[in-house]
């Protein structure tokens, strides 16, 4: 069976290799062929391939047959620990050797058996395989393979150099010194394994050795017993190796807690069954209630705790380099034996956890593997989402903090602004007596700014009447869900009475009668004083104005009074004459007396009206029917209108809501407007002197108008309302100014407009209607 051979396509191109996998193991030797070179890319580049083929041909001619290396396994290819050694050798060798080569392998399956002619079949096979000539290099892996070569070298392949790899330094002597032989060995420190075991499990009292029954396995077990004698004061060493694996599984279930298992090599159990790929370890590990230690890299991850490990890959790598040197022509005698130290202690994180071994017990420079993949690796997306949430949350929290800081700053600014504006802020939750108030608020209520008055203490400063009003305002506000505004007094401890305007909002609390309230209070005492002064002045002025209006009307007013008086007198004297007669007509006398009484009343009413107008009273707002007010004024001015030949034209809507006003002041205003209207028409011919009196409800207000057909308004209408401006030679110029003040005080407006047809003017008064009763 001649292997097909492929060389490198070109020096720079990759390896075009065929690695024919072995389909089965069994007892049939395995062969594996491999060519060297580097991985390449041929598919896309036809030219390169053509060129490569040409070069390959050239190379084959130059180099002749590829060099052949025979890897000889002590067990099968897949048995620990040499599988790793061989694997590394294969991959590393390609790095070191650039000539065409073939790695062929065979294993000493039969080495598992002890028998008289155990080498025979393999020898036959190898002879058949190499009948054309021996391999260029013979590489036995492990002591068994080395021993096979020593035993049969002369008979089989006396010439090719021997590169013995993977065996412990203490077994090198079994092969013996030979110039055509070199070694890449290892230094296995069995005592070091026990050191490791005891360091990790200081309480261990018994160590069970678990191993196979093949010679190498027996060898190692014996070595362990030997080397661990130094620990006899601390531990007892026992062997499980005489038990087949199924029994081992049972045994390890009931081992004491202070025991530990050390797995040497376990390829062939006591029942003679092979266990590849550490399947024995897996089986025992499943049931063991004590930790299993071991030294093979392959075992790590399958159940051993870990420690110093057999340096399989480094042996393979070093051997590959050495093999390349030999094939390149170096003499084996000139290549010294290489001893590889154990790999740095390496542990299985899961086992450490399982047996509660803290990582602090591991020696320096240890490697811990099989840590659970970090969350990142398993739940990357979820983690990203989570992280996103975290960031969002953090941002939110940060912004909340910022907002809180801002709001604190705002609150401080607000406090400051409120203080500057002399506004006091306060609020209270529904329950409890705790009132939160700004310093300005406490000042308004006569407390020290740093005092913390309760709500009761604050309310106690408000006189009882006002307190009741405030309470009612709270209730109304809570019911109607609307703000309230109220002026009330505050009595300071020294007896000073302050006027405070409080505005706020109340919301119902949990229990009836409880409110959450908040609001602002302002001390308006100064304004109050100023307002009352202004009010007094306005009243004085209004009074003066009324007196002067009435002065203008005095002639007419005298007529109004003298008329009934005249009637009374004439009637009375007529009665006197009648009664002097012999037979007085008593019916006539009775009629006369009736007239006298009614005329007396008439005179009295006139005087009453005059007195009302002349009274120096306070402004009193009350619901007023403007039609009545008009009528009253007309009664007073009737004579004046007659005297001045002015016709009155009444246009009063019958359905007018009452207005909130002071009757006397409204009369005064109308009186003034009527007088002005008459004055404006002095130059009109007698038939064209008409004053219209209008009253109507429009745009939610009651509008009164006094319209004349006179000379009209000046260009600057507002001048009329300016104090001390008069168009009359004897006028004081205060009339309209005072009228406007009076109307404004009642929440109304007073203005003048020219008539639409350009003749004459109209003076309008608008007044708010009484709010409908709640």
């Amino acid at each position, binding site marked *: 069976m001649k292997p097909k051979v492929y060389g490198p396509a070109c020096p720079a191109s990759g390896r075009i290799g065929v690695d024919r996998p072995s389909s089965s193991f069994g007892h049939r030797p395995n062969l594996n062929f491999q060519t060297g070179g580097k991985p390449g890319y041929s598919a896309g580049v036809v030219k390169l391939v053509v060129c490569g083929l040409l070069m390959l041909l050239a190379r084959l001619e130059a180099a002749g047959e590829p060099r052949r290396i025979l890897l000889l396994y002590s067990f099968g290819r897949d048995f620990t620990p040499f599988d790793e050694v061989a694997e590394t050798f294969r991959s590393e060798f390609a790095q070191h050797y650039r000539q065409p080569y073939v790695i062929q392998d065979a294993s000493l399956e039969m080495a598992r058996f002890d028998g008289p002619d155990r080498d025979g079949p393999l020898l036959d096979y190898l002879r058949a395989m190499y009948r054309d000539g021996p391999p260029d290099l013979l590489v036995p892996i492990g002591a068994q393979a080395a021993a096979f070569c020593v035993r049969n070298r002369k008979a089989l392949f006396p010439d090719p150099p021997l590169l013995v790899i993977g065996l412990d330094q203490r077994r090198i002597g079994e092969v013996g010194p030979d110039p055509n032989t070199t070694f890449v060995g290892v230094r296995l420190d069995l005592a070091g394994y026990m050191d490791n075991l005891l360091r990790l499990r200081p309480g261990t009292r018994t160590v069970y050795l678990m191993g196979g029954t093949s010679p190498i396995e027996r060898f190692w077990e014996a070595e362990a017993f030997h080397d661990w004698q130094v620990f006899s004061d601390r531990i007892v060493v026992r062997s499980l190796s005489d038990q087949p694996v199924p029994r081992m599984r049972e045994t390890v279930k009931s081992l004491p807690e202070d025991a530990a298992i050390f797995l040497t090599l376990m390829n062939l159990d006591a029942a003679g069954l092979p266990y590849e790929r550490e399947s024995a370890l897996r089986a025992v590990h499943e049931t063991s209630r004590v930790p299993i230690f071991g030294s093979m890299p392959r075992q790590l991850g399958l159940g051993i705790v870990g420690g110093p490990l057999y340096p399989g890959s480094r042996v393979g790598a070093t051997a590959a380099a050495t093999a390349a040197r030999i094939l390149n022509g170096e003499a084996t005698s000139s290549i010294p034996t290489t001893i590889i130290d154990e790999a740095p202690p390496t542990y299985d994180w899961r086992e450490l956890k399982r047996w509660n071994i803290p990582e602090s017990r591991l020696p320096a420079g240890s490697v811990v593997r099989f840590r659970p993949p970090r969350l990142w690796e398993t739940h990357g997306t979820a983690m990203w989402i989570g992280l996103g949430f975290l960031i969002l949350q953090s941002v939110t929290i940060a912004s909340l903090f910022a907002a809180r800081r801002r709001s604190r700053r705002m609150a401080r600014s607000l406090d400051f602004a409120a203080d500057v504006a002399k506004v006091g802020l306060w609020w209270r939750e529904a329950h409890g007596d705790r009132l939160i108030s700004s310093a300005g608020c406490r000042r308004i209520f006569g407390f020290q700014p740093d005092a913390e008055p309760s709500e009761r203490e604050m309310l106690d400063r408000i006189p009882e009447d006002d307190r009741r009003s405030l309470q009612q305002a709270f209730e109304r506000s809570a019911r109607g869900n609307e703000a309230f505004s109220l002026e009330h007094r505050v009595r300071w401890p020294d007896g000073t009475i302050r006027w405070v305007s409080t505005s706020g909002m109340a919301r119902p609390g949990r229990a009836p009668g409880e409110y959450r309230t908040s609001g602002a209070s302002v001390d308006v005492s100064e304004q109050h004083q100023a307002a009352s002064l202004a009010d007094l002045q306005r009243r004085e002025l209004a009074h003066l104005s009324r007196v002067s209006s009435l002065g203008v009307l005095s002639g007419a007013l005298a007529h109004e009074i003298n008329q009934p008086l005249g009637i009374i007198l004439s009637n009375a004297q007529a009665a006197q004459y009648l009664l002097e007669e012999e037979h007085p007509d008593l019916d006539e006398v009775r009629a006369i007396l009736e007239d006298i009484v009614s*005329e007396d009343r008439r005179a009295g009413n006139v005087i009453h009206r005059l007195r009302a107008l002349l009274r120096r009273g306070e402004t009193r707002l009350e619901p007023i029917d403007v039609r009545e007010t008009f009528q009253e004024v007309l009664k007073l001015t009737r004579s004046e209108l007659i005297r001045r030949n002015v016709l009155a034209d009444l246009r009063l809507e019958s359905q007018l809501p009452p207005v909130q006003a002071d009757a006397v002041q409204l009369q005064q205003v109308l009186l003034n407007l009527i007088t002005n209207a008459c004055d404006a028409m002095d130059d009109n011919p007698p038939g064209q002197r008409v004053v219209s009196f209008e009253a109507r409800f429009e745009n939610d207000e009651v509008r009164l108008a006094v319209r004349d057909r006179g000379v009209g308004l000046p260009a600057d209408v507002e001048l009329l309302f300016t104090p001390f401006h008069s168009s009359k030679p004897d006028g004081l110029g205060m009339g309209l100014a005072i009228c406007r003040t009076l109307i404004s005080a009642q929440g109304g407006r007073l203005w003048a407009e020219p008539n639409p047809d350009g003749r004459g003017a109209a003076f309008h008064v608008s007044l708010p209607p009484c709010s409908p009763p709640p």
Partner: protein
Amino acid sequence: MNLRTIGLVDDDPKMLQALDRLLVANGFHPRRFSSAEDFLARHRTEPCDCVILDLRMPGIDGLELLERLRKLEIPIPVIFLSGEGDIPASVRAIKGGAVDFLTKPVDATDLMNALRLALHEAAKVRANREAADQLRGRFATLTPRETEVLRHVITGKLNKQIAADLGISEQTVKIHRMRLVEKTGLPSVAELVRAADHLGIEPAA
């Protein structure tokens, strides 16, 4: 004396009634008018010897009525009754020929005194008017030639001058003048002059 009809002009019916009662009690015959216009409309058919006017009334007021009466040459005496002591108005009233200017409330005595005065005035007016009527009646009997001569006589001319002016003999002038005296009953030239003036007969040019 039958001068007892008194006109009352006032826009206040109560006032009219009160004055009515007072006048009736004092033996007068009042006649009520509710406005100046009312009086102007009815005074011919319902004549009054005197009128008491309210000064201030809608429409035509008292002063204006007085002025109209004077324009219409209705020589009725007027008493003003005013609700106010308005001096400018009273001055205007007296100038306009009012008998008196009284203010309300007016005492009956004052009113009666004023009425007596007014009626005395009225009587005088009436007498004058009757004399004038007589005279006018007598003058109405004059022939045109006699009237012509009269117009010359009242200029104070001598008979000779009149004869020359009229182109007639002096004798004829004398006869006409004799007839004049007979018909008018006025012997003196002075009386003739006054009567002619009163009757509106113009002197010859």
